[in-house]
C-alpha cells in the first residue's frame, strides 16, 4: 500500500460520515426549499420561490434569534472572562480541579430538567413571589425575552468559560513579570499582555456559543412559553406541527446562509486582529 493509498483509507470513515450526515441532508433540505407543501403536509416536488417569498411571515423568529443570540454570547463572555481569569490566575492547583469540575457539573443533567428548574425560579412561585414579599409587585419574568436570555446564558456559560480558561492558563507567567519589569502597572499589563493573548480563547468561546445559540429551540420553548420564538422553534413548528417541509426547508436554508455570512465576517475580523501572532488559530 502506498502512502497515498493509506492516506485515502484513513480519510474514508470521516469522509463517508461527512457525506452521509452533512452533505446529503443539506442537499435534501436545499432541494425541498424550492418545493411545495402537499395537501396532507410533507413535500411535493416543484420549482418555486414561493417559500422564500413567504419568509417575512417568520420575521419575528429571525429577529429574536439575531438579537438574543449575540446579546447572550456577549453577556456570557463578560461573565465567563472574570471567572476564567480567577480560575486560571488566582487559584491554587488543588482548587483548580475542583472548581473546573463544578463548572461542568450542570452538564451531568439534561438541559431540559435544568430549564424546568428555571421555569420554577422565574415563575410565579419563584423570584416574583419573593419580590412580592418585599413589596415589589407585578414583576413578570417567565415567558419574557429576559427569561430566555437568562436561560441561554445559564446553559452555555461553561462552553464560554473553558476556552477562555485554557488560553489564560497557558499564558506564560513570565510575560507578566516581563511587563511589570518594563514598568507596566498591573492594569496596564492586563490590557497590553493578558487580554491580547487571551483573544483566541475569547474568540473560540464566542464562536462556539454563538453558533449553538443560533440553532437553539429548547430554552425559548420552555422559558419563552411560545411568546419568544427562535428560528429553531419555527423549524420545530414547521416540520413537526404544520408539516410544511418546503417552507421549513426555506427557513432552514436562510438560517444557514445567515450563519455562514456572520461566521465568515467574524473570522475575518478576528484574524485581522491577530495578524501579528503565531499562536492563534480559531478552531
Amino acid at each position, binding site marked *: 500500500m502506498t502512502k497515498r493509498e493509506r492516506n485515502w483509507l484513513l480519510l474514508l470513515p470521516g469522509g463517508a460520515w461527512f457525506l452521509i450526515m452533512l452533505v446529503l441532508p443539506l442537499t435534501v433540505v436545499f432541494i425541498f426549499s424550492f418545493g411545495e407543501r402537499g395537501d396532507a403536509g410533507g413535500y411535493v416536488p416543484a420549482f418555486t420561490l414561493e417559500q422564500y417569498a413567504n419568509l417575512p411571515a417568520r420575521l419575528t423568529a429571525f429577529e429574536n434569534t439575531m438579537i438574543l443570540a449575540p446579546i447572550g454570547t456577549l453577556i456570557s463572555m463578560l461573565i465567563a472572562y472574570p471567572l476564567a481569569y480567577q480560575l486560571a490566575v488566582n487559584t491554587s492547583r488543588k482548587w483548580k480541579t475542583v472548581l473546573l469540575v463544578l463548572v461542568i457539573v450542570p452538564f451531568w443533567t439534561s438541559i431540559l430538567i435544568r430549564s424546568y428548574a428555571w421555569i420554577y425560579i422565574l415563575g410565579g412561585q419563584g423570584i416574583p413571589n419573593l419580590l412580592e414579599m418585599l413589596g415589589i409587585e407585578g414583576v413578570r419574568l417567565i415567558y419574557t425575552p429576559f427569561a430566555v436570555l437568562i436561560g441561554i446564558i445559564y446553559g452555555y456559560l461553561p462552553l464560554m468559560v473553558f476556552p477562555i480558561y485554557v488560553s489564560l492558563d497557558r499564558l506564560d507567567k*513570565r*510575560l507578566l*513579570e516581563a511587563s511589570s*519589569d*518594563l*514598568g*507596566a502597572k498591573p492594569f496596564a499589563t492586563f490590557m497590553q499582555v493578558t487580554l491580547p493573548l487571551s483573544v483566541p480563547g475569547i474568540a473560540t468561546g464566542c464562536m462556539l456559543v454563538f453558533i449553538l445559540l443560533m440553532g437553539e429551540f429548547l430554552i425559548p420553548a420552555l422559558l419563552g412559553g411560545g411568546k419568544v420564538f427562535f428560528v429553531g422553534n419555527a423549524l420545530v413548528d414547521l416540520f413537526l406541527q404544520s408539516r410544511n417541509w418546503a417552507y421549513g426547508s426555506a427557513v432552514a436554508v436562510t438560517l444557514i446562509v445567515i450563519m455562514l455570512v456572520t461566521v465568515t465576517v467574524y473570522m475575518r475580523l478576528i484574524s485581522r486582529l491577530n495578524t501579528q*501572532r*503565531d*499562536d492563534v488559530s480559531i478552531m
Partner: protein
Amino acid sequence: MNVSPAPAGLSSDRFREETAPVAELRAVTKRFGDVTAAKNLNLTIDRGEFLSFLGPSGCGKTTALRMLAGFEQPTEGDVLIDGGIVNDSPPFCRPVNMVFQSYALFPHLTVEQNISYGLKQRRPRMDRSEISRRVARALDTVRLAGFENRKTFEMSGGQQQRVALARAIVNEPKLLLLDEPLAALDRKLRKEMQIELQDLQRQLGITFVLVTHDQEEALSLSDRICVMRAGEVVQMGTPRDLYDDPKTKYVADFVGTSNFFEGTVLSVKEDMAQVELADGSRFEGRASDSFRETETVCLSIRPEQIRLTGKAEDGAIEVVVQNRIFLGEHTEYLVRHSSLGNIIVLAPRQAELAGTAFNQGDRAWLNLSREAMLVLRQD
C-alpha cells in the same frame, strides 16, 4: 558603609546617588515556606561593574536576582538601590530591567513593539519620535537594525536573545539583570554572545548582574564573582582571586578544575601548613586560612601547576600514566598514584614539543611545588 561628607556643590541626594553603591543587599534572607532560598546575604554592587552570581541550581542565585528585580520580597533584611531601601517597591517602580532566561518576549508584538514596550509605559508619556529614535539606537546596539517589523517567534535563538537585551537596555536601567541569558544557546553562539555582552557592558557603562551556573562564563565576563551555595555567599572576589585563592574546597572545585587530597594538619608555620595525607605522606602548602593542628583539611593543586617529568626528582612522586587527551595547546594526562589515586595534569604544548610526552602505561614523576599547593577548609 563609609560615606564621606558631601563635597560642596553637590546636593545630598545627588551625592548619595553618585557615591552609594548602585545596589546593596543587607542581611537579606528569603524563605519560601520551610525552604530558605537565601541566607543572610550581604553584598554591594558597584556602579558600572559586571557582577556574576555563580553556583549550581538551587543555590539561591536566582532568588537574589529576583529580589533585586522586585519579583520577590526579602523575608528579612533590606534591598537597596541607589542608597534607598526598596523592599516593598514593585518591579514596575524600580529602575532595573531584566533579561529573562527564556527571553519572555511578547509573542503578539513585533520586535519594535517589544523593544519600545518599556518606554511606552513611562508617565508623562515620552514623545513618539523620541521613542522611535531610542528603539532604533537600541536595535543598532544589538546589531538588529532592519528587524523592526519581524515577529519574535520567526527569529533564531541568538536573535531573540538580542531582542531581549535591546528591550532591557533601551530603558537605560541602573541595573541590568541577566538570568542565565545564554543557557539556551549552542556553544559557539554562546561564546559570541559572551563577547557581545562584555562589549555592550563597556559601551553602555550600565551595571550588569549575571546569574549563571557556568563557571567559564562567569570567569570570562565578570569583574567580580559571588560564589553561592545553599543560599549563602561562599566567597566573593575577582575571577583571579577566586581561581588563585579559593577559600574553600567548594570554590576551588566550582571555579576551575583542581586535584584534591584529604589530610590532617601537622603544623602551621606563618602562612604555610604541613599536611599529612591518609597514606602517611607529607606535603606542605599555602594555608588559605588559619588552621589548627589535627584539623581535617584538603590539599588542592590545579592541573596546570603540576609538572610531569620522566625522571625522579627530589620530592617528586611516582605515578603511572592512565590516559592522555590531546587538547591542542595543552595535553591532559590522567595519572594514577598508588595511594593518592587519580590526578589530572595539564601539560603545555612546549613540554611535548621538547620531547617530554608520555603514553598510557608510562612511569612518570609529579612535581608538586609547595607554592602551588593550597590548604583549604574541607567545608
